[in-house]
Each structure stands twice: as C-alpha cells, then as structure tokens.
C-alpha cells in the first residue's frame, strides 16, 4: 500500500508533536521513556478493550525460552481514529514492537510502533504518542 510522503510526514509530525497527556492517566508514571525496548515475537493474544487495547507477544530467546510480554496500546476509540481495526493484529502474527518499558519491572511495555506481519511499520497509538496534542491554553 502506497502512502504519500505528505501523509507520512504529517503522521510522523503528529507522533513527534504529541505530548504525554493523551490517555486517561499519566504516561510517565507508568512507563519510562528512557527505557526503549524492541521486541520481536509472535502475537499470542489481543484484547481490544478499554481503557487501553493490549496485545501479548511471545518472545523466544537464543536458548528457546519464551517470555510473554504485555503491550499497551491506546484505547480502541483512539486507535480506530488512527486507522486501526480490531483485526489489525491477530494471534499468530509475527511482529516487531518498539516501546517503552514499564517502570515496575514487569514484562510490560507501552507500544509506540508496531511492524506488522506484512512489513508495514505502523504507529501504535500508545498513550505516549497517539493523538493530536491537547488544545493549547490561550494566553
């Protein structure tokens, strides 16, 4: 699927301009933007639910040990407005996820970008960068 440069530029701009006030809770209190992580694995479960959609990925290490990661997306209403559907991710898909690690040390991350099974690299509508910035205060 071809995407025009202007759309890509706009979308990247959207990601970069987005602050963290985009979910129903603080991003920085749950995830550490300074701990980026890239996970490659197989989708084991998708939860298309509020307040955040989630999907789970089995990541196999070199010894064959599999770790299941819990990855947070935005809420379905935000994802749909960004072009997602409940079928964008499916159990069995091979994906690469870029995100930020949870601060509490659990096998959780906030997904920022997902490389889908078909190779497209999509913004993930995470609570750390999913929507237009909130209206600016008028001075």
């Amino acid at each position, binding site marked *: 699927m071809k*995407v025009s440069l202007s759309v*890509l530029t*706009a*979308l*990247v701009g*959207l*990601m*970069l301009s987005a*602050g*963290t*006030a*985009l*979910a*129903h*809770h603080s*991003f*920085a*209190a*749950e995830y550490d933007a*300074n*701990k*980026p*992580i*890239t996970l*490659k694995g197989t989708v084991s479960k998708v*939860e298309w*639910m*509020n*307040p*955040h959609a*989630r999907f789970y990925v089995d990541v*196999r*290490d070199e*010894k064959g*040990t599999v*770790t299941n990661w819990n990855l*947070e997306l935005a*809420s*379905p*209403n*935000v994802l749909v*407005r*960004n*072009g*997602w*559907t409940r079928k964008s991710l499916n159990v069995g898909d091979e994906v690469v996820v870029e995100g930020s690690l949870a*601060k*509490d*040390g659990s096998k959780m991350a906030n997904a*920022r*970008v997902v490389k889908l099974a078909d190779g*497209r*690299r999509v913004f993930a509508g995470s609570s750390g960068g999913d929507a*237009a910035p*909130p*209206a*600016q*205060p*008028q*001075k």
Partner: protein
Amino acid sequence: MRRVSLFFAALGCAFIVTGSLMAQQTPPATTSPAGSGGLNRGPAVPTGPALRLPNGTIDLSGVWQGGGPVGNIADGLAKGETLPIRPEWKKTMDGRKAMQDPEANCLPTGVPRRDPYPWRILQTPTHTFLLFEGNIHSYRQIFMDGRKHPADLDPTWYGHSVGRWEGDTLVVDTVGFNDKFWFDFIGTPHTEQLHTVERYTRTNMGSLVIETTIDDLGAYTKPFTITFTARLRPGEELMEYICNENNEWVKHIVGSAKEF
C-alpha cells in the same frame, strides 16, 4: 536501567534494549494500519463567525476536543501567574501517586478538567448538555431555565450547574462539588468549597474559548482564572469509551503524580 540491562544480558534474549539515545532520535516513518488517516483526518476546520440558533443565542453545538486542563491546570493561567495554592494543600498534592488519580481509575474528571477525548455540546431550550466520550462516557447537565442552586446539595462529581447568556457568552455557574476529583494529572487539589464559573465563547466556528474562574478558599488563598481553547472536530462523532471494561493494569502506574 542497570538492573534491567543485566537481566536481559543474562537471559541472552532475542530482543534488543537500545540506549536512551534512541528516544531523542527521529523515528523512521510510520503509517496507520489503514495506510492513511490519523486524528487530523476529516474535513478542514471551518472558518468564519459562529452561527446562531433560532432564538438568537450562539450555536455551540459540535464535537470538540480540549478546552480544559489535562496535564497541569497551571498551563491555563495568564502568563506570569502562579497557582495561589495553600501550603498544606501543596504538600497533599506533592504526596499524590499517579495510580490514585480518579481519572486513571475510570472516575469522572469533574470540572474544569478535560480528558483527551472528544466531547459534544447539545443545546435544548431547557438544558445544555456536555456529552463526554471519555472518562467516563458521561455527561454534564446545565439548567438553562433560570433556576437557582438548591440550598443544600449532596456533593457530586460534576456539581449543580446553572447557565445563562451574557451577550454571546454562555456563563455556567457550578457548586455542590465533591472533593474527590483532581484538576489534572499532577494532582492539583480542591475542596468541597469549590465554586466554578465557566465562560464559553465561540470566538469563531472552529474555536471555543473556555475561561474558568476557580473559587475555592479551602485549598487556595484567592480565586484564579484559567483559559483553554477547545477545537472543533468537524465530521467527527462520539464513540463508545467504557473505561472500566479492563482497568486492572492501573496497579502498574507506580510513579508520583508529579512525574507526568
């Protein structure tokens, strides 16, 4: 970071933990699963003056986004102003944990806080309704029939609101709040003495300026005024957002409210 790095090294995982430098780099281009779209899709925001209803008042209807504090209410203060918060309440605020935020726990935002989701204004001859998509898929009702506030109100999340027009500005006076909601992510507090006066002015088709005076001498030494502007979302409709559907993960929000 070190503990996490050691853990990953020991595990010899297939995934990669990159350095913090990555966070500052411009990411490669991404798109949406649909190949286009994004929140800015849809018709351009119309320009020109606001329209009027048959009764002559300004038509405030439409789907809006923003218009109140999300992260920090002080963002809406006039330049150079600071919150006149009482020291004891500043101490309370500084001790708040992000996981205690009522909004994170799928409770209402109260007034004047906004969530980051769209909302709609619906005007009828007797009421004005604010319909919220997000926290918590709820509504405010503003009585437009000239009634006064009842003398003895049970404290509630949205309080008791009466509205009137001053020229082309809708003025909404609200009392009877509970003290449970926060003004923003960082935990800015209030008490049950809170009295808000919101002034809604549709300065043009696409902009709704909301100026709110916060009068709460329980938590502040004097009233203060904040101003935020809601933006019209033409062509947008409200969607369902039932926050409580699966909010068990709130327990992972381990940081201080100030970390926003």
